[in-house]
């Protein structure tokens, strides 16, 4: 029996738990299938082409595997985990049920239908276009329609959160929005605006030409639409992990959130700045003047700023937690953190690797420096530190308390889970470092290098390291999936009163003392739209008014 400070909580109902749990089932299933393809690519690079042995089950092609890996891991695992997790942060944060649960269920099932519609053509080999699906490399219409349904389904779940928030606001007019709900709502608002890019790309160009209604596409315009969504997609992945780092991890470590004001400011800046930066993915594209690219490069430095705020606040919160546990010294406090808790360890290790991901990200954003690494192995090396570690390893860590909370069952073999987090960390260091080095040496990304005629000898050692890192990551992901399945499938239940709680950190300073402008939507939304119009408007107008759908589709 613990005596808690008066911190009212909302207990998830059985239906809530089932609904959030359904998201996790799909997410973890996608991760477990998608992750099997990753090592196949890594092994191919080192000269062990296992795809040739998989021909009897229809997985004969490196690029089919690469498409499945990208779509299932980067799009499906993330989107389903995020919508499930944000359902929880919305209702637990606001301490009220969803306003229209049926609406959220509609969104969820629409995403499931979309997933099936996209997965079938991928596995059949009718959509080996990778997860960026650049036209005029043409996929089956079912792939594009499936992706559209996933996106629209996530919009609908977002509407459900907004209606819930509006209802809460009416009941609580003068209360600061509880942080975990606040962060989730901003993430979803940003997502609604950001995904307009691929929605327009798919509905105006890709679906019509894949159905044979138009003769072709304008590929450069397609790229501009895609990257309108493509960069904020990164923040859609990242912000839910930030919610946990800011407002949950400190509680798990025994501390509080260091700065409520700064945390909220960081989230508003992400809303404001994560969209008008897409041209930094198109630095080497034709058809876009260098001036616009330079403007987006500057804004990209701008969006690095709230990540630097995050670094400070998260580290300060952890240092505060560690000092309460008796940790001392400039760095000595780090050892006082509860490293034995796999959920904490996963998120701390994710955060450490994310620092390197951030540094690499600034390199990518650096206009002409980007010439050295654009479209090289450096890029997947980079985003395996960000989406595949900062995000994925954090989500794994979150699920180490979330699944026990949802099922009422104890985590199966916590020590095993702890080993899993460290294997991910070590495997990713080996994999990612080798990828970065290969990129600097000029190795192209998304290429079956095992068959490429131009590979010089000096790449070989690094290609081997890629496959060693990939093998370790494969072991780690299998351990994760087994832990999750065994946790949910076991008969043992935790004793009454011992249930795993949702960790929510208090703020050091009463959130009611955070100024109102940090809890007011209107000016930030207006600013977001205005900045997008300024940073994208003229060039987008130029490309749309000169659009020519003259590029016919070709199969991969």
């Amino acid at each position, binding site marked *: 029996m613990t005596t808690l400070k008066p911190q009212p909580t909302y207990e998830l109902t059985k239906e809530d738990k089932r609904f959030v749990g359904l998201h996790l089932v799909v997410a973890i299933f996608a991760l477990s299938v998608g992750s099997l393809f990753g090592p196949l690519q890594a092994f191919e690079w080192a000269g062990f082409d296992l795809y040739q042995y998989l021909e009897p089950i229809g997985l004969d092609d490196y690029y089919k595997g690469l498409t499945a890996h990208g779509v299932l891991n980067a799009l499906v695992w993330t989107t389903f985990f995020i919508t499930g997790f944000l359902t929880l942060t919305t209702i637990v944060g606001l301490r009220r049920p969803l306003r229209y649960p049926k609406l959220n269920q509609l969104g969820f099932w629409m995403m499931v239908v979309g997933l099936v519609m996209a997965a079938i053509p991928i596995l059949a080999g009718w959509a080996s276009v990778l997860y960026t699906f650049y036209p005029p490399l043409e996929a089956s219409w079912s792939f594009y329609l499936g992706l559209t349904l996933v996106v629209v389904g996530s919009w609908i779940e977002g509407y459900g959160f907004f209606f819930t928030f509006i209802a809460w606001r009416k009941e609580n007019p003068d209360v600061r929005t509880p942080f975990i709900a606040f962060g989730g709502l901003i993430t979803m608002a940003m997502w609604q605006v950001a995904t307009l890019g691929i929605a327009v790309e798919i509905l105006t160009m890709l679906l019509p030409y894949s159905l044979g209604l138009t003769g072709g596409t304008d*590929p450069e315009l397609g*790229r501009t639409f895609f990257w309108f969504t493509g960069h904020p997609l990164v923040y859609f992945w990242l912000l839910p992990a930030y919610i946990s780092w800011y407002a949950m991890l400190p509680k798990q470590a025994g501390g509080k959130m260091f700065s409520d004001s700064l945390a909220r400011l960081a989230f508003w800046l992400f809303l404001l700045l994560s969209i008008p930066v897409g041209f930094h993915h198109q630095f*080497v594209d034709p058809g876009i003047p260098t001036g616009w690219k330079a403007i987006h490069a500057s804004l990209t430095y701008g969006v690095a700023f709230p990540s630097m705020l995050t670094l*400070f606040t998260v580290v300060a919160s952890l240092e505060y937690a560690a000092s309460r546990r008796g940790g001392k010294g400039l760095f000595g406090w780090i050892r006082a953190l509860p490293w034995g808790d796999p959920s904490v360890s996963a998120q701390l290790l994710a955060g450490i690797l994310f620092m390197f991901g951030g540094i690499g990200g600034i390199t990518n954003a650096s206009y002409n420096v980007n*010439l050295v690494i*654009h479209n090289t192995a450096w890029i997947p090396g980079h985003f395996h530190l960000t989406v595949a570690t900062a995000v994925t390893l954090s989500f794994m860590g979150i699920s180490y308390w979330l699944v026990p909370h949802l099922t009422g069952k104890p985590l199966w073999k916590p020590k095993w889970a702890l080993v899993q987090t460290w294997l991910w960390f070590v495997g990713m260091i080996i994999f990612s470092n080798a990828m970065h080095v290969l990129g600097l040496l000029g190795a192209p990304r998304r290429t079956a290098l095992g068959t490429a005629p*131009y590979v010089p000898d000096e790449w070989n050692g690094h290609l081997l390291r890629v496959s060693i890192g990939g093998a370790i990551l494969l072991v780690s992901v299998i351990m994760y999936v087994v832990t999750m399945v065994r946790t949910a499938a076991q008969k043992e239940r935790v004793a009454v009163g011992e249930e795993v709680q949702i960790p929510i950190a208090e703020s050091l300073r009463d959130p009611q*003392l955070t100024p109102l402008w940090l809890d007011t939507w209107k000016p930030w939304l207006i600013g977001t739209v205005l900045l997008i119009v300024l940073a994208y408007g003229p060039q987008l107008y130029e490309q749309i008014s000169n659009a020519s759908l003259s590029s016919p589709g*070709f199969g991969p």
Partner: protein
Amino acid sequence: MSDQQLIPEEVPSFHADNYEKKWIAFSMVLLVAFAATVAIAGFALGFQIPGDESRVDPRTVAETLPWSEPGVRDLGGGEYDVYIISQQYLFTPREIRVPAGSTVNFYVTSIDVQHGFKLQDTNINMQIVPGQVSKLTAEFDDPGEYPYICHEYCGIAHAAMFGSLIVEAGGGS
């Protein structure tokens, strides 16, 4: 945490710790310095990236000059234009020769899907998009063979797509 927190505060206000303020200032200076460095390198020292060159019709470009005769054009004075067509899964021409000491303008387009053009050991790195012409310029002082590889996935045999720029010593052809 500052001592000020001991004074009861009732009015909402923006609050940042002193260390936090220093970190904010440091972050801003760092990011502005990065931006300035890149801007100077790009716009004063000429380390430039591809821009808006020109548009073509991908269905007919291969039959129209100069693309109907891809390859090297000697502009005189050590300057060369090179026109390269990319398609699944080859570059035309597959081999280019220029003498050492030349300045070479690369013009590349595609007649089918998107491709990439990365000239190893140089700053030439371009996305090749049907309907668009990509252009970058480089100087070649050192003789040797520079592979140019397709670094954008373009289909099943993408890994086989490459060509060679040969920089010849001593005056060349």
